[in-house]
């Protein structure tokens, strides 16, 4: 996983607070994980984005996501709204045992 991020295990970054609701309107909504994943892919990923982003815009299956050290399944997954100083951890399970 680090390989995709230029061998950085940990990145502190500023993420836009809001994203446009859709391309046509000017209204914006607070950033969710759904926005974060493509944002990471286009801003932080160094190589092979297909190993991070899955076909449905979520992370590729086999990557676990933790939001402040809790399973993202408990936090609403893609719909989770990012808060200040949130810590999002991505763990790949796609390797040998």
């Amino acid at each position: 996983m680090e390989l995709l991020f230029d061998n950085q295990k940990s990145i502190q970054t500023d993420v836009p607070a809001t994203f446009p609701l859709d391309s046509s309107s000017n209204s914006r909504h607070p950033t969710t994980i759904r926005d974060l994943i493509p944002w990471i892919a286009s801003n932080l990923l160094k190589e092979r984005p297909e190993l991070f982003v899955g076909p449905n815009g979520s992370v590729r299956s086999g990557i676990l996501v933790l939001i402040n050290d809790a399973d993202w399944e408990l936090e609403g997954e893609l719909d989770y709204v990012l808060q200040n100083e949130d810590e999002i951890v991505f763990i790949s399970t796609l390797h040998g045992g």
Partner: protein
Amino acid sequence: MATILNEAGSTRSEPGSGSGSGPHTSAPGSRLGSGSDTPRSKNATSGKPLRNPCNICQTVRAILKRPKTGQQLCKDCFFHVFETEIHNTIVDNHLFNRGNRVAIGASGGKDSTVLAYVLKLLNDRYEYGLDLVLLSIDEGITGYRDDSLETVKRNRDQYQIPLLIVSYKDLYGWSMDDIVREIGRKNNCTFCGVFRRQALDRGAIMLNVDHIVTGHNADDIAETVLMNILRGDLPRLQRCTSIITNDTSDDSSGIETSKILRSKPFKYTYEKEIVMYAYFKKLDYFSTECIYSPNAYRGHARVFLKDLEAVRRTAIVDIIHSGEALSASVQANESTKLPTMSTCTRCGYISSNELCKACLLLEGLNKGLPQLGIGHTSKIRRMHGKDGSGTSSLSTTTTNSPELQVAPTFKAGSPLATESSGQASPAEVKILHKNVMANKAAKAQKPSKTAKKAARAGLQDIKYSAPFKDMALYTFVLVTFCVWRLYAAVSGQHLGMGGPNSKENE
């Protein structure tokens, strides 16, 4: 994309902290948006009602939704449940006896690291009385295994478990780097897998252990069940589903290998929980994919499995269960005799053939015929024996008569099935020629009915034609046959239909 920084919305606003912080040494995975080493695991803010309370203790914030049950658990309850379930698996299946010496197959990856940690913990907690050792195989893959073995060495020190590393280079004279240089990246996993299985046996004998445990988890097993069903490989289906295998040799002369048990204590443990356990326990594991294995087939099985799981939460256990049910029904059906395990006549280690696959592959490497043993082993064994260039022991003979009763369907897919050498040569020639026939027919796009028939008949065998590429002599013979057959086909002669059965027809 503009980065909006303001007090209301920015998700990270620590002034002065750079965009990239130093590498984390302890935690696996990539951390984004964090520089602190103290994760906020609990909602310590008193007063507020607890969001997502743990389903068991109700007092702490849950950190994990269990894939098996959907239960929400806090960290401590998760640890307890995880460890207890593995303990129950061990006890219910009578995996160990007091005083057993047990080797943990350790790669440094998540599964084996968690396995070593949990076994050590349970051995102390429940007083199993086991003598644990770590056993690692060094395949000789620079930039992958050398790094992961460093992890195992740290585990050895952290858990105070002795470690033995056996290397392919020492056992076979070839490291995986050497093999890949020789044969290229295709098919190298065949060598690696076959050698690893035997290397574990050899290491276990060196360590004088009673038992080898491996970190195969529920997801792995479900994937393997799917793959074996798709390949129709019933013997392997049976072996991959059983939690404990004893490769018993019927032969009284069987050497020590026959006494060594193998088991998978994580058979019912989900990969997600293993990874989460390792993460929350801050276990030191190595997480890089092997540089030589894109492993496409398993990858597809895996994606399919994940998709199934999204629709049906219990998919993984369901598939393991159906694998068990299928292999049980295979056992119950007396007409389908599965090959019995015996020992290799050359190296003396466990094998389902007279000559084990490791020896066959090794001979190929040493003779500069690395394709030997890849693809349809039994055919090549026969061919090689017939050829006379190999030692006589290479040909499978009729000594193991029970194996001859293997149902015909197995002959096509399973390298475990053997055949009487008496009828080998004519059948062989026909099959070979049919491959090329089918290939040619496909290439030429001949619309003729007979050519299509041939293509269909040869379809099953097409993939096995690859190993013969390098053998100029055979190619020559085949081309000759092919031309003759093509001529025969054009002149309207009947061609036999159906894969293995056509041997009888013709």
